[in-house]
């Protein structure tokens, strides 16, 4: 009997609109691997590739995994998943495991923003914005591209601001026009960027206030890596913000934890455990076997 047989392994697969993330854990909750890759239009159905990499890193085989939970925008495109759970529940669980005192979580992704209230480690209530780019990472992405700056440099540049130029336009498109106009009027780039961060922060803060904010507040998602945004959010919300070391991890981590919990509860809940052997293949429209 090898050491692998006494342990159990679980997988969380988070297919976001921009990035796909996979987390593998063991039954003690140890993080064995975390892999992320761009989702992209063609890669939406290539969750198996990211999974393959994660398995490699953890030195595991797909057959070793006891339960797989898929989450995120593309959660229906994971043929080897045993269950789909929304990213809202998964984020709540993931954030809670990293920050046991967390009561509120805000996730600003590439194409949406979510605010969650957490109670006893679980999702209690939520609000989402996915109809307007102005309150999402897209807002900064579009500007970075228009100004030919790297998205990852925006935060640092904005911290050099001597004053924060208010951006009055609500709409991402019009905001770009405003930025160009401001630059041509001689406004400094760092001041404009500071204003842009404020604009995004205030949109997200308005969303969060609909839900009510209770500390501790945790910020996740790609935008959380932007130090200028963290600062702007703190000011908009008027409270401390905790950021995990790896802000893209929480969804997949939560999914893996929920995979373990579902597996453990299954016998009592009268649910059958998956017995089929999984095939690590890309999703197609014609594959009937995986339900």
């Amino acid at each position, binding site marked *: 009997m090898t050491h692998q047989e006494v342990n159990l392994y679980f997988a969380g697969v988070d297919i976001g609109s921009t990035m796909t993330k996979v987390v593998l854990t063991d039954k003690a909750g140890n993080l064995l691997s975390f892999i992320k890759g761009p989702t992209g239009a063609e890669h939406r159905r290539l969750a198996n590739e990211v999974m393959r990499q994660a398995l490699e890193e953890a030195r595991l085989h797909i057959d070793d995994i006891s339960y797989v939970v898929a989450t995120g*925008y593309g959660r229906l495109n994971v043929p080897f998943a045993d269950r789909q*759970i*929304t990213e*809202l*529940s998964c984020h709540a669980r993931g954030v809670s495991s990293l920050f046991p005192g967390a009561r509120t979580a805000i996730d600003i992704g590439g194409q949406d923003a979510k605010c969650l209230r957490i109670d006893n480690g*679980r*999702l209690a209530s*939520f609000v*989402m914005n*996915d109809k307007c780019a102005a309150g999402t990472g897209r807002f900064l992405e579009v500007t970075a591209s228009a100004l030919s700056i790297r998205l990852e440099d925006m935060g640092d540049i904005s911290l050099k601001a001597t004053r924060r130029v208010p951006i009055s336009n609500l709409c991402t498109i019009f905001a770009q026009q405003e930025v160009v106009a401001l630059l041509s009027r001689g406004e400094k780039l760092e001041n404009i960027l500071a204003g842009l961060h404020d604009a995004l922060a205030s949109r997200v803060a308005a969303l969060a206030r609909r839900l009510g904010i209770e500390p501790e507040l945790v910020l996740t998602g790609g935008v959380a890596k932007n130090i200028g945004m963290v600062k702007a959010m703190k000011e908009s919300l008027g409270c401390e913000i905790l950021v995990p070391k790896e802000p893209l991890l929480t969804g997949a981590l939560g999914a893996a934890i929920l995979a373990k919990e579902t597996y453990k509860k299954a016998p009592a809940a009268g649910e059958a455990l998956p017995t089929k052997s999984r095939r690590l293949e890309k999703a197609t429209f014609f594959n009937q076997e995986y339900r």
Partner: protein
Amino acid sequence: MSGKNKGLSKAREIYLNRSQRARELKAAGKKIIGYPCVYVPLEMLTALDLVPYQTCGDMKEPVTEADRALPHAFCPIMRNCLHCALKGKNDFLEGMVTIHSCDPQEKTARVWESYTKYPYFHFIDMPITVRPEAVEYFKGQLDDFRKTLEVFTGKKLSKDRLEVATKSHNRQRALVTELYELTKSSPPLISGTEIVQVVKALTSLPVAEGNDLLIETISEVKKRTAGPEKKSARLLIWSSTLDDTDIMQVFEAKANVVMNESCGGVRAYRGEVKLTADPLEGLADYYLNEITCARTFRQATLGETRKDYARDLQSRFGYLKGTIKDWRINGVVMLLVRYCDPFAFEMPSLKDYLNSIGIPSTYIEYDYTTGALAPMRTRVEAFIETISR
């Protein structure tokens, strides 16, 4: 129409091809009259042997024709209805009866009348309160409606005719109530999706044929061995209109929708019209008081000089409490159509009420297009995840 299908399969067939029966009846010489809102007293049409037909929208239609006359920031359902009308989908109608239930209904009514050429058109005005003089005024409106109907048909709308029609429509209400009894069980014997199809069918058939369909359906469902699967969440959906199976499916993937509190669900079928000496009085009273649409201003006491928010909430929403209890509902979804003002203003107060009776609820907004379904799915599933522990 194939005579082979009965009950649920017939409802499904009609849902997919709504106007078929109306067209058959028109070919046989009947006059079909369209109506866009459940506040229109159909009894008065039935009494004169006219066939009422609800002019619904179609979520799958890309709305283009309405741009001529209605701005984009406007009730997407009415825009859709107008688009379908201007595109000629309702060309079998002899006329329309429109009504001042809400702004979009009132404003679209004028446009509808201007841009189409039906032989008959009548607009019924409605008061906003249920005060005695308001009910009296509404009765007067129905009397004027009677006058133009009589001119159009050349027949008298006698008390007898109206009573017969009212009894038939009351029968339909009672049958729908009976149908909804079948969602009380766990799992419900009939799904929310199936009921949407049945109600859609009812709004496409003469009342007597609708009653027959209901009787068949109830009998079929009672005998069922393979009904909907039991899900952990039993939902009530509160909305202006939920009449599309694609939307219902988003909910029923992970929940049992046991009550559809909207036009498209139970709203048009509660209680019954009283048979009064002046039949129009019973109708005016019923439609103003019993239809639970947010457009009507209700308060605990008429002209009250002292107000109490809790009592106000109870008078406006108390009717939901019994339903929630009897149907063992564990979550309410407030499904709002974008740009719908009456329901939007109502929503936070309803949430307060639901909080006061300890029922979890969530608010989801959509714009009556197929693009709205995917974002709706995540929100619905997340809500279900929070209430099923």
